[in-house]
């Protein structure tokens, strides 16, 4: 509980109960383009929203943030129009603010624990973070020059350049280590580049954040398929003092029901990778095609399903439906994503489970999804009500494109090619939840490859914790000389 006498209570009467809304493209226009939906705050709007912060003496929002950004401080700076200072405060804990401001589930984290939220709408922390990051990108000359941390002789390999890997790399670099990030695709960013759509997270924003890391001295090597181009053992044998594995949950799961091999049935990963990484929506100006039909069914209820359903509309689908086996209350996607999808006309076929995909006469292309209605009863192990099929309620949902968005498994390459690395029965790497240590010496892991598919910021938290542990590990191994380590103490 907040202590009585907190100065904030005195301001309470003046606080606007509602947050400053962020302008958005209207739904009718935005379903026809891939530009970002949310348009951002003006500086005036940002100041106005930042003024709502109570400046709590014991801020609960900071505890709600997996990387512990000093939220009251940066929001306070923003409220006085000191945006350069605000971004400096954020950067101390988080080097990817433009990404986090856009894709973190703030309602379950910082904003969910915001004291103002007990009575009014919580401070729009995410939107302010985003504003500060975008502002700083346009005002580079106003920012203090980034102090280039001197390079130690120690060298860490980071495998995978998604949220976990980028954060680990940033943190390790700041602690003085040389860092090389290995990415198997042709562009770094992981799920931020191939998975999250342009209209939610413009790729220019991701590139900007990665350029910032490059400026700070992080090296990136693309087309490096660790496990194939070189093995984990090779990395350890070639001068790296430690390796961080942040290879993510990239392996799409299929349902294992009849008809899944038909043309027109994709994984969400394929749809999103073609669209985001390869920019297939610009075909034939780019070489990679994507074809979705008029009626699209998306199986699943998470953020990826929402992204897929909304992407399908932008690629020309007339009708895009989410098929989810539980009810609206259990939908795992963020509320904002569900709202945006609804505004754009995505339909929700709830309490329905696909049992097979139907084919055209030549058994070539999908024509529909046979579903069965479900009811909810009891609780399953995850605390959600358990869906049970109702026999005899089968119905057909016509669809010429089906997108499977029921989750991803751990990327298999590193576990497959690293003898001795301990994995659990699902294929996730077993790592200490705090330090990220695996059973192999000098090898750490974090993010979705350890936890299974989770959020961007949780992966970032894991990357950061592992970076700190790696730094300690290396210091313990090189106790003697290094002046950088000495000066840091």
């Amino acid at each position: 509980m907040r202590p009585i006498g907190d100065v904030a209570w005195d301001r309470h009467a003046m606080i606007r109960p509602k947050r400053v809304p962020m302008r958005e493209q209207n739904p009718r226009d935005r379903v026809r383009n891939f530009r970002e939906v949310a348009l951002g705050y003006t500086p005036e709007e940002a100041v106005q929203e930042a003024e709502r912060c109570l400046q709590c003496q014991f801020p609960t929002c900071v505890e709600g943030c997996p990387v512990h950004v000093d939220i009251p401080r940066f929001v306070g700076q923003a409220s006085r129009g000191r945006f350069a200072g605000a971004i400096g405060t954020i950067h101390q804990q988080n080097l990817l603010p433009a990404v986090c401001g856009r894709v973190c589930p703030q309602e379950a984290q910082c904003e969910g624990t915001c004291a103002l939220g007990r009575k009014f709408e919580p401070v729009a922390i995410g939107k302010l973070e985003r504003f500060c990051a975008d502002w700083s990108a346009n005002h580079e000359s106003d920012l203090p020059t980034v102090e280039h941390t001197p390079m130690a002789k120690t060298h860490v390999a980071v495998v995978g350049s998604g949220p976990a890997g980028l954060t680990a790399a940033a943190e390790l670099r700041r602690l003085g280590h040389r860092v090389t990030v290995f990415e198997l695709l042709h562009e770094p960013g992981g799920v931020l580049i191939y998975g999250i759509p342009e209209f939610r997270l413009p790729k220019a924003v991701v590139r900007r954040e990665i350029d910032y890391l490059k400026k700070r001295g992080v090296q990136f090597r693309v087309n490096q398929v660790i496990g194939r181009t070189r093995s984990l053992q090779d990395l350890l044998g070639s001068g790296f003092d430690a390796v961080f594995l942040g290879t993510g949950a990239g392996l799409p799961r299929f349902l294992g029901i009849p008809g899944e091999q038909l043309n027109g049935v994709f994984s969400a990963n394929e749809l999103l990778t073609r669209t985001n990484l390869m920019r297939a929506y610009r075909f034939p100006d780019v070489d990679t095609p994507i074809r979705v039909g008029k009626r699209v069914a998306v199986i699943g209820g998470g953020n990826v399903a929402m992204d897929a359903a909304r992407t399908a509309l932008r690629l020309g689908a007339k009708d895009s439906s989410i098929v989810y086996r539980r009810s609206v209350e259990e939908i795992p996607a963020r509320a904002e994503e569900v709202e945006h999808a609804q505004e754009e006309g995505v339909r929700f076929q709830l309490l329905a489970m696909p049992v097979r995909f139907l084919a055209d006469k030549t058994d070539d292309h999908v024509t529909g999804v046979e579903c069965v209605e479900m009811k909810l009863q009891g609780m399953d192990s995850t605390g959600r009500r358990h869906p049970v099929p109702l026999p005899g309620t089968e119905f057909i949902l016509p669809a010429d494109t089906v997108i499977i968005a029921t989750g991803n498994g751990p990327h298999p390459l590193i576990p497959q090619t690293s003898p001795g690395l301990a994995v659990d029965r699902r294929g996730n790497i077993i790592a200490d939840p705090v330090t990220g240590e695996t059973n192999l010496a000098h090898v750490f892991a974090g993010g979705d490859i350890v936890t299974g598919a989770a959020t961007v910021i949780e992966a970032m938290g894991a990357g950061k914790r592992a970076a700190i542990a790696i730094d300690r590990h290396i210091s313990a191994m090189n106790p003697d000389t290094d002046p950088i380590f000495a000066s840091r103490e």
Partner: protein
Amino acid sequence: MYRVVEQRPLAPRIREYVISAPDVARTAAPGQFVVIRLREEGERIPLTIVDTDPVAGTIVLIVQDVGKTTHEMTGIDAGGGVLRDVAGPLGNPTEIDRFGKVVCVGGGLGIAPLYPIARALAAVGNVTIGILGARSREFLFYVDRFREVLDETFITTDDGSCGRKGTTSDVLRDVLRSNDRVDRVWLIGPPIMMKVAAEITRPFGVKTVASLNPLMLDGTGMCGGCRVDVGGRIRFACVDGPEFDAHQVDFDRLISRLRYYRSEEATSLERFCARLAMSRGTDTR
């Protein structure tokens, strides 16, 4: 950037490229492939690694000019030209062991990826029989190289212009009949050829391996676009393959899935050729 060190025609619309890709050359094994991209707006396409020179840091790719990217590739100069991206080696290496007597069947462009496998099988002491097929004499390549390393090499052409008139499957059937025991068969070629050949080996109970070539995007297990039906299970050609038990593969489904983007592929190629013609017109003025 990955330099094109050499390129030369092997047959009509088929060229051999030597590419500088030291990381790939160092670890690649027979049966593996790379995914390449020509330039920033380019698509990712998988190509089998035909040979490597770890010392020179180069790999050999053999490419048939069939679509936009492969057509564009023919215009890249050796020496100055580059590929934007080469990622690999990808896929599981071929299981190379001393099986006894093995038969390697390559059809059309499949002759190229078959070569490193056949050579490796011969090198470890198998009795190796090669069956190479093409439409006609002019489409055959690497025949001498196969003859150099294999114990016996049969040639077939659809029109009889070289070797026996007919298909690789005709020869395969005869080879199986006239040899008391064949321990393993490799098939690389058009899916329809592999489908027919798999049915020929099935009654003989010979373990038969097919190297599959479905549509691929990332080539690393992430998109699921390359999924194939093997024994009723979904397998990914990129991380579970590319080689599978030919008797378990649903080739009809593979053939159907390969057709999905055919119209887009045609559009892309036509557009590219039209632009090329236009720019050439401008150059000559």
